[in-house]
Structures are given as structure tokens and as C-alpha cells.
């Protein structure tokens, strides 16, 4: 939806496109009507929250994914192994 209408708008360069995206962000969240210092407060809170999310996912998500894979392979892969061992 954003891309389709953006194509119709004839952006001359990337900077204009980014400015339009920022404008859409202002309109959708309602920040457009606020005074500049309120906009800065909201932007800094949102930016820090997103930064924390990115940092956490960068640091912890691979560890959790590896642990989860080990856990599930232990569940399914471990059973046939033990029964085979028992039979043998």
C-alpha cells in the first residue's frame, strides 16, 4: 500500500522519500499535532525502546534458538536411540 502510492508521488531522491515516510509516521501516531519538545520526548522513548529490543534480540535470540533446537531434538531424536539401545 505504501509502495503503490509512493510510486505515484514522483520522489526525486531518497531523501524526499524518507521525509515522506517520517511524515506518515508523524500522522499515524498522532505526533504531528504535538509541540517539538513533545515530539522529541516521544521519539527518544520509542527509539530507545526499539534499540533495547534490537540489542536483546541480537544478544539472546541465537542462544535461545540453539537451546530450543537441542531440547526438541533431544525429545524426538533421543527416544528412538534409547529404544534401539534397549533392544540391542
Amino acid at each position, binding site marked *: 500500500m505504501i509502495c503503490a502510492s509512493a510510486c505515484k508521488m514522483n520522489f526525486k531522491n531518497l531523501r524526499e522519500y524518507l521525509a515522506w515516510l517520517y511524515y506518515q509516521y508523524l500522522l*499515524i501516531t498522532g505526533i504531528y*499535532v504535538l509541540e517539538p519538545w513533545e515530539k522529541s520526548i516521544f521519539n527518544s522513548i520509542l527509539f530507545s525502546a526499539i534499540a533495547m529490543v534490537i540489542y536483546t534480540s541480537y544478544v539472546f535470540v541465537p542462544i535461545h534458538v540453539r537451546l530450543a533446537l537441542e531440547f526438541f531434538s533431544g525429545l524426538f531424536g533421543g527416544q528412538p536411540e534409547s529404544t534401539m539401545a534397549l533392544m540391542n
Partner: protein
Amino acid sequence: MVFIDDLCIGVTALANETTQGRGFRRARVITLHSRRLIHVPLRIPDFVNNIIQVGGSFNCEMSSRSRLTKMTESSANKLLNGDACNRTINEKKSSKNGFVKSHCLFQQPHKYRRTVEKNQNVTPSSSLYKKPFVESFEETPLLVAVLTYMGYGILTIFGYLRDFLRHWNIEKCHVAQEREEQKDFVPLYQDFENFYTRNLYMRIRDNWNRPICSVPGAKIDLVDRVSHNYNWTFEHTGKVVKDVINLGSYNYLGFAENTGACVDASIEVTQKYGVGVGSTRCEMGNMDIHEELEQLVARFLGVESAMTFGMGFATNSMNIPVLTGKGCLILSDELNHASLVLGVRLSGSTIRVFKHNNMQSLEKMLRDAIVHGQPRTHRPWKKILIVVEGIYSMEGSIVRLPEIIALKKRYKAYLYLDEAHSIGALGPNGRGVVDYFDLDSKDVDIMMGTFTKSFGASGGYIGGKKELIDYLRHHSHSALYATSMPPPVVQQIITSMKIIMGEDGTTLGADRIRQLSENTTYFRRKLHDMGFIIYGNDHSPVVPMMLYMPAKIGAFGREMLKRNIGTVVVGFPATPIIESRARFCLSALHTREMLDTALQAISEVGELLQLKYSRHQQPHPSLEWTSEDSQLQD
């Protein structure tokens, strides 16, 4: 006035409901009466219907006597009407939420997918409507609704932050506040409307109350103003923004002008009578031009007699209390104007609100009212008055007048029709919504309207039977206490009405009416094709376009003004909180070029702000527009 036959119709209604397990004793009473009245709708003679006075309630004995003597008067027409609407109205009982859908098309797919559009095409009761009645109120897209609520949530949080800062005097408070001594009392400014005003309305306030410095015709001049403290105070820069295309004024037939026949006549009359009247209508303020105007209005509307008042708001709010009182029931539409709501509340009658333009809801309320009577005593209601408007200006919808008249005749209620926006703007002869549906104006008991919108003047009128108007002349608060209409305004209305009726010898009136309907069709179709969500009937000159998000309200108004187009944007509390909109009012003076410029700008702003929410199929731009354009030229 609810006679015994109404009670018995109500009792027959109870008969239909006995399967729900009502008392056995009542069932026996039902069989006694139902045989006599079920197929013969009684016709109350006219003279009894005319007199709307707060008399004593009619008791059963007297009515049964009149019933026996008048039983022979059941005319074939009434029978046919009664049966026709009985059939059509009963058919629609099956639909769940009360919308008049076309039966075969919508029942099946409704189960499988969420309907995108609530298209109200009236096919079953086509005997009442002579031309197709197409209204659409497209549903809010879910994502847009969620984002709108999120936007309001964020703004509410910042509102609380600002209120906190104001309370602790960290920032200067520009708003009204209670005095120190009153701080321990119940707070005056804590309800949501005040919170909303302080924290959202003030921030985008530059879109409203813009000062004008020219005649509000098709183009208008605005005073340039600037604010240095975020809209708390404004200053005029001294410049004037010239030739802004005016899509906000109620100027449907273009009589708001400063040259022409109307203006010359008004100047003459001012030189003869002066400007002020200096008295009320009852004392010394009744001039011969007022009498001439009233006869003209009565002739224009097709009623016996009419009366005019100086202010349209006062016409509604001061005259409804005169017509009804305690012991009467008023059924008022959900979206009625503030003047009607005020008048209805001042009257002291019981008020029941039915869903907007929903005939099932209205009929159910009428039946309930007749069956159960007044709340505790169960006496019959003295009068039942249905209050509706011709065109609802926030929705752009037209009232379903044929169905209401059929209902009113069947259940013996009275109808009050407020044609503030529709008089002059609808109908092939410009005579309003009654003309649009090709009905008899004698069916509407009280026809009210204003001269503000289509006649370029101010004031209101009420038309109806002669006894009603004579009663109003003596008892209306507006006639007794308010100053009567100034002579230049009266002459403006007389001249413009004669032009619309064609009595001045030119075809100017007919041309303007035709131009307005062409503009309406063109503008609505183009906006619809561009992909905006437009509410309302296809023939109404009021076009609401949905914006939804709070920031887009302010952005739309400002961007349109940058492109030299003046629009009106509306938010809470005039509309529901997520359904904010921009409202365009078309005029007969808008030329095709002006509309094209406006449409081009609206499309640009729509792309910029991402307002094209509509989810129906959009036609291919190059092919469809040219072919449809050529059809319109014929």
C-alpha cells in the same frame, strides 16, 4: 391522539406475541377486538387530525363511538397503502440488524465473508420509491480503526502529561480554571470533552473559525492569521488570502452574492423600511412584506399556511415545546441537529431515539409505544411525534420519507420534518425532499426549514395546516419574544424564492438547480473513483469524506488551505470519535473548472496523507473516465 383503534392495533400486536407466553387473560381480550379491526385501517377525519392542542387524553368510550360512525369511511387508497406497507415492512423483520438489504443478493455471502459495504438498495419496497435510493456507508477498515485508537491513546498520554505540568505550574496555563476557593468542590473541567478541548482541539484550532472578508460565494477571501504560541492566541498579519475555492459554505443554489436581482431588491427595501424592525412579531413587528413572504412560502411548499421566524435554530428550539408537552411521545432520529434535540428536551415530553434512518427500529418503537402506553400508568400517549431531518449534514444521508409517511399513516403519528439542508437543494423543482420523492406535502404535518442554506438569507419557517399555523402565531415563544426578521433579509428570501420558482421570468432558478445536481453527481463520482470513502446518498450535495486519524484532521485542513481551497473538517464531538471527516458542500456556482481544480488538489493531498482507504474495485483511469465523462455531457 391515540384512539381506541390504535390501542386495538396494539392489542392485535400483542396477539402476535402471545406465543411468547403472555398472560392467558389477555389472550381472551385479544380475540374479542381483533376480529373487528385487523383489516380495516380506520381513517381519522381531517379536522380532528389538524388540531394539535394539548387537550385531555381521549378515553375509550368516546373513541369507540366515533369509530362506529366513521367506519364506512375506509377509503380504498388507505386500504391499499396500509396493506402495501404491511407487506413490505413485515418482510424486513427477518433481517437481523435492521438495514434494508436487497434480499437475494446479501443473505448468502454474508455468512462467508465480511461485507465491505453496507449498501442500502431498497428493492423489496420499490412500490414506495419511484427512483433508486442508493446510500453507502462503507465500513471502517480494521487496521485504520486500530491505528486511530492508537493515535488517540498516544495523544491522551501527552494530554495527561501537559495537564500535570499545568497543575504543578511548571508551564503557564491558558485555559479556564476554577478559582482557588472552588478547588475543593466537584471539578468543573475534568470531563472528557474539556480534556479533549484543551489537549487536542487547541492544537489544531487554526482550521476553524477562520475570519472571512468577502462574500461567501464560490470563491472567498480569508484573513491571514498566525499564532506564536501554538494556537492559544492568534494575530492578524494584515494580509488577505484571496480567491480561495469555497467548499465549506452552505450555498447550494448560489444566492450568497453581492450583485444581481436579489441584492438590488434588498437595497430598495432597505431604503424604504430601514434595516431594523424594533419589535416582536406580535407587537409592532408584523410588516406587509412579512405577510407577503409567508404567503409565498406557503405557495412554494404546497401547504395551506406558513410562518417565518428570525432565526433557524430558534424556530426548532422554541416551537417544538409549543406543540408537545408532558404526556406526549417524541421519536427522534439518532443524528438530529442540536436545535431539534434542544427543542425536544425543552418540551418535557418523553423522548425515544431510534437508529439513524432505520425504519425497523422506528416501527418497533411505534408499536411498543402504542401497546404499552405511558411508562407507569399505561395510559395512551396524547400524541406521538416523529422528528426527522431532510438531509443529515454530517452523514450526507437523505431521510426515507416514503416509508416514514406510510408508517405514520398506519400508526396515526405526526411527522415533523426539518428541511434545513434539503429545501432548495433537492428535487427537480427545488422544493425539497418531498419533491425529491414526489410525495404530497399534505402528508407531512409540520414542514420546517431554514432560509440560511439555499436562499442566502437567515431565518426559518414552519408550514402546515391553517389551524396549526394560527395556533403557532399566538403561542410560539419565538413570535412572542424574538425580534422579527429584518426587511432586507425578507426581501432577499422573496426574490430568491421567486427566482427558484421561475416567477421572475428567467430560467435562472431551473439552471441553478440543474447545475447543482450535475455538480453533485460529478463530484461524488470522481471522489468515489479516486478511492476515498464517501458517506451518504448519491444525490445529496453534502459530501462527507472520511479521515479517521486525529493528526490527519489538522493536516488535511492545512494542506488544502496551502493549495487555496477552503474546507471544513469535523471531529469529535460532532461525529463519533474515530469517524472524523472532511465535509464538502457543493454549490451551483461552482464551475466545472473549479471542481476539477479542487478534485486535483484533493487527490494530491489524499496521496500525501494516504487517505484513499476505500476497498472497492477502482476503475482503470484512462478508459473509464472519458467514456463516463461523455455520458455526463448529454
